């Protein structure tokens, strides 16, 4: 039972990470920086509870605000570029964050000994849950309450004017700009909110694993972060959740019986999903597309309607 609770915790944290990427992807930008904000949230929340004894209820919001603020600060210069350049810029940012933490040492003396980030050796002893007697169910409730809250927030945002602005920017920047939409404001706001969500996810991550180090926050994590919404389908929030369950639940844990072949299957399955459902698992049903006269597998660009993303 504890195993399933633990797995649900992991799914919850990764769903938050995926939702943070969803935010940014919604405005049409591919950001590999979510891993960096995740790391910032992880270290910030961990440091607050372990080094200065803050309660988690305060540490998490602060971590979110810090991550969100840094996201906004980075967003302004970074979001001036688009497409592949943004991918590389955000990758570079995530790597910078990882390397900063690799070099970051700040230890304080507590009754349990020296605690704090120790550069390349990592930051251990984040045992807030265990020392305060939180059961797996308590932790699970916290994580999923936050997931629900974030999903509600994003759903509400999506339905509000802000969501419309984001989607407009995502669909066609030129048209949006011609309609007087402030592109920078839309992009940076999505980036900032995405960063804050990733910060919360990171804070939860550091407390569920009790030890974090720079290697946890590699580009691979950032790739997972955008994989969830892309695989799940960008049109719906639930798609991200489905993708996380698919990858973390089924692929990673469920296919354990496959032994060594599990890792090989991983890449192959991502490929397969993209080939069969390029819009994501929860995108428009194949039937509807066939009915509308468009084949689900296009054999090449049509003369009209070809859109190029820089």
């Amino acid at each position, binding site marked *: 039972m504890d195993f399933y609770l*633990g797995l649900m915790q992991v799914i919850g944290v990764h769903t938050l990470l995926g939702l943070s990427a969803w935010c940014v992807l919604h405005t049409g930008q591919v950001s590999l920086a979510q891993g960096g904000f995740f790391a910032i949230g992880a270290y910030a929340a961990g440091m607050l509870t372990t080094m200065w004894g803050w309660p988690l209820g305060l540490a998490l919001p602060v971590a979110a605000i810090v991550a969100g603020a840094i996201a906004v600060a980075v967003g302004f210069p970074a979001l001036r570029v688009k497409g592949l350049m943004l991918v590389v810029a955000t990758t570079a940012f995530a790597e910078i964050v990882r390397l900063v933490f690799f070099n970051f040492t700040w230890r304080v003396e507590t009754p349990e000994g020296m605690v704090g980030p120790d550069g*390349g050796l990592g930051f*251990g002893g984040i*045992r807030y849950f265990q020392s305060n007697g939180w059961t*797996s169910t308590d932790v699970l409730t916290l994580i999923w309450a936050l997931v629900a809250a974030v999903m509600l927030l994003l759903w509400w945002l999506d339905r509000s004017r802000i969501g419309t602005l984001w989607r407009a920017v995502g669909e066609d920047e030129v048209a949006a700009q011609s309609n007087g939409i402030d592109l920078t404001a839309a992009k940076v706001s999505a980036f900032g909110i995405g960063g804050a969500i990733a910060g919360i996810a990171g804070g939860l991550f550091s407390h569920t694993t009790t030890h974090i180090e720079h*290697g*946890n926050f590699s580009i691979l994590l950032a790739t997972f972060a955008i994989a969830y919404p892309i695989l799940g389908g960008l049109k719906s929030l639930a798609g991200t959740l489905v993708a996380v369950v698919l990858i973390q639940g089924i692929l990673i844990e469920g296919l354990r019986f496959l032994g*060594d072949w599990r890792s090989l299957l991983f890449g192959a399955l991502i490929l397969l999903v993209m080939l069969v459902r390029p819009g994501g698992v929860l995108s428009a049903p194949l039937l509807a597309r066939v009915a509308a006269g468009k084949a689900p597998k296009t054999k090449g660009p049509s003369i009209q309607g070809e859109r190029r993303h820089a």
Partner: protein
Amino acid sequence: MKSISLRSALALLPVATALLAGTAQAQTREVKIYAFGAKSGVVRIFGLNSEAAMKAAAAQINKAGGVTLGDGAKARIAIEYLDDRCTAEEGINALRRIASQNDAFVAVGPTCSNVAEPVFGILQKKAGDASDSGLQFPIYTDVAAKGGLASMSQWAFRNVPSESNMYKSLFDWIKATRPEVKTIWGGVEKDFAHSNATFNVMKGHAEKAGFEVKGQSEWLLADTSFSTQVREMRRGEADLVMISAHPFTTCGVLKEMQRQNVKPKMMVGLTSSSSMETLQGCAAQAEGIIIPTSFAPVTPEAKRAADAVQALGANMDLHNAAAWENIFTLKDLIERAKIMAKPETVQADRQKMREALASMKETQGLLGKVGRTEDREAIKPFLFVRAQKGAWTVAHTPN
């Protein structure tokens, strides 16, 4: 007459079935020892080797009759190895998965130190502390060697060499036998917890033994170009070069040293690099490097174990030698603690196993007796090996 014999036959039936079931149970009684570690990813050879060693050990025990359980029944040992891909989250998931099985009372692992630290972190810190909601499951580590981890929890026990002891002994021996070696230049792989931490240990003991550490060169584990570092080394003109890095970068540095004609009088390497990988990658350049290790096929038991593992297609080195030793130790502990290995006794079995592990004063290793510390770490006998013509030969056995 007929009715009596029929009734007696029918009366015998339940007895017969019970007997049959009893013997069948006794025949197929199985005790599972779980393990987890890296079977995928760049370090997958560690997991494959550990699993092979554990299976070979279990096969040997089973051939000799198996293990005796608390109720007197004999059981065969089965090994189940879960892959954690050397990541913290999967390591924790794997352990939780193991802990949720009602036939699991101990686990061997993990492979990676960066998995061991989070996994030990989620364990209950002090056994019996009701306010600590950490997991209550005993772990007996075979490979993850970053210093001091077992002190994180009273449920964590390790059978890994103490690098502090080994390098202290090594530098003392070098000081005693090679008086012309006075200065040292270090090389360290900074972004791997193990090599980074061990370098500080190496440096500390070298200085205490009276050597002058003139400086150090640093690189990262995926680096490919070492010309700057080796140039610093060349300028340092030290008698001894000590490299705390894994085979990939160790070979890269050694090849660059050959290119730039850096020929120190002696070379010292990291324990984990005393493996096939190094020899496969750069046997020529590694010629003469000395590495302390807790395994070499120098005793009859060690040779037999190495052969048994070879038969399963794997090589034995210091890492999976520990896994082999762990299975034999666990067999002894199961018998001593009278583990029942039944679904209803699983909580009690875990408790008993923890206490048995905690009460160990010494265990039987392949190179000799292995002592235990207060901190649940091991004091393993060790020796120094030297790379010679593409193989590891024994350079010195400290007493």
